[in-house]
């Protein structure tokens, strides 16, 4: 098919719009000046060193990693059985239950954080870490329900019934027959949920207290008080991480699985 020149030019402009800003940040990370300048006047790696010497980036990275991991695992733990029940059985009010499980998507992140802060931290007096964990759990649960659910909707449940009739117990049939068939769905859901939790800010805003701050909220605070290329250096490292993750996903699940 012949390509329209106008359309090619248009798409090129859109991709330039998407990538030039990221390219500029990446370049400024290597500047030797104490304020961000573009183009850079001298070359230096000191901003990368700065990330590792100021402890807050490292400790908040660990916090975010833990929160993202635990929140995602918890969401998988309660989300997979729920998605299975919704896909497998005809139950009363199925649509309503489904929308109930997807309901965190219609609650804005900042409202979710606000409500949890009022309830968990001020009323139940639980430590903020648990508030963060629960907030992120709620925020990622819909991803699990949707992605695992769509994976299950393509699964032929007669295979499971065959296993039952051949004497396999219900629980062991679930783990030996159902789970292996939806592994790629579970993996995609895990990646999506993990990345979204790691990057989430609105939910965390109210729930980061003394001693507990997530990586993005810490980064945001840093930007509000400093204007040096440390943040550019952090961006370069995060983008490198993203590229690695995308590469691994492409080799295993196919990149389109993250576009859900």
């Amino acid at each position, binding site marked *: 098919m012949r390509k329209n020149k106008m359309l090619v030019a248009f798409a090129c402009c859109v991709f330039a719009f998407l990538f030039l800003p990221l390219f500029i940040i990446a370049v400024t990370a290597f500047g030797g000046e104490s304020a961000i300048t573009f183009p850079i006047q001298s070359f230096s790696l000191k901003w990368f060193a700065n990330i590792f010497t100021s402890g807050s980036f490292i400790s908040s990275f660990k916090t975010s990693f833990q929160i993202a991991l635990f929140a995602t695992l918890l969401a998988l733990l309660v989300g997979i059985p729920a998605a299975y029940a919704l896909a497998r059985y005809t139950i009363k009010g199925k649509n309503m239950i489904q929308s109930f499980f997807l309901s965190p998507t219609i609650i*804005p992140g900042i409202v979710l954080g606000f409500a949890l802060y009022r309830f968990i931290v001020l009323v139940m007096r639980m430590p903020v870490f648990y508030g963060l964990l629960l907030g992120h759990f709620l925020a990622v649960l819909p991803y699990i329900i949707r992605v695992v659910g769509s994976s299950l909707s393509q699964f032929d449940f007669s295979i499971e019934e065959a296993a039952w009739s051949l004497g396999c117990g219900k629980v062991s049939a679930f783990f030996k027959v159902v789970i292996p068939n939806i592994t790629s769905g579970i993996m995609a859901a895990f990646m999506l949920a993990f990345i979204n939790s790691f990057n989430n800010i*609105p939910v965390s805003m109210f729930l980061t207290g003394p001693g507990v701050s997530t990586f993005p909220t810490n980064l945001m605070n840093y930007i509000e008080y400093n204007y040096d290329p440390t943040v550019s250096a952090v961006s370069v490292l995060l983008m490198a991480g993203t590229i690695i993750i995308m590469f691994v996903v492409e080799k295993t699940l196919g990149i389109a699985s993250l576009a859900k």
Partner: protein
Amino acid sequence: MKKQLPYLLLMPGSILLIVFLILPLIKVLFPTIYEGTFTVKNYREFFQDAYFMKILIRTLKIAVLCTVISMFLGVPTAYFISRCNKKKRGLLLALTIFPLLTNSVIRSFAWINILGRNGIVNTLLMNAGIIEKPLTLLYTEFSILVGSIYLFLPLMIITVAGTMENIENDLMEAAESLGASRLSAFIKIVLPMSIPGIIVGNILVFTGTLTAYTTPQLLGGNSNLVLATFIYQRAMSLGDWTGAGVVAAVMIAATMVVLRIFNALAAKIDERGEKYA
């Protein structure tokens, strides 16, 4: 036992949702309508407050503009991607997903560097002798809008491209060989068939912009609050929990109304499509 099994499987998730989503929401929303007796006083006060209305209108204005512009930029780009060969399409999709996986703090930070007082735009314009004093681009509604488009455009592209990929190439070629120009084939064939994807894209971008916190916080500053930054300021700086609750209710209601409108639109288009089919 057999009948109870599905409910048993749904139980843990339901309990967590009720205890940590529904109860906390009731806890913050109920006081906004109940002070000894049921009252709409808090809401009346808010909607009569010029300051609040300004923030509400600003938020809606940015969300509408961001959605419309993302649609105009995103739909042709998605069309371009969907017509590429498989290998190139995969690469372009990966390039579109990449910004989506990059933290929104970083994506906003990029625009601080570009639009700031000593940022790239001002430096270029001053070096070229077009302006003498730096323009105020950052911490304006304009910078929030640019940052929001930057944030949500990839989402529009991905969503629309997903629908357009399913349209058969043959259909397009048939239209062209029957004498339709490429533009009219696009408008008469591809566009109508992509409407479901475009609607989903609009929903995601609109509700996303309506509730975004990071971009308005970093690019808008304190003089350009939107609902999400306003709720945080109300609660944390002013300790006005009821006020923050009212804003929370307005945000949830706005999201629901937007979803209703778009879903009704989708249903209407479906119905019309069936009639003409």
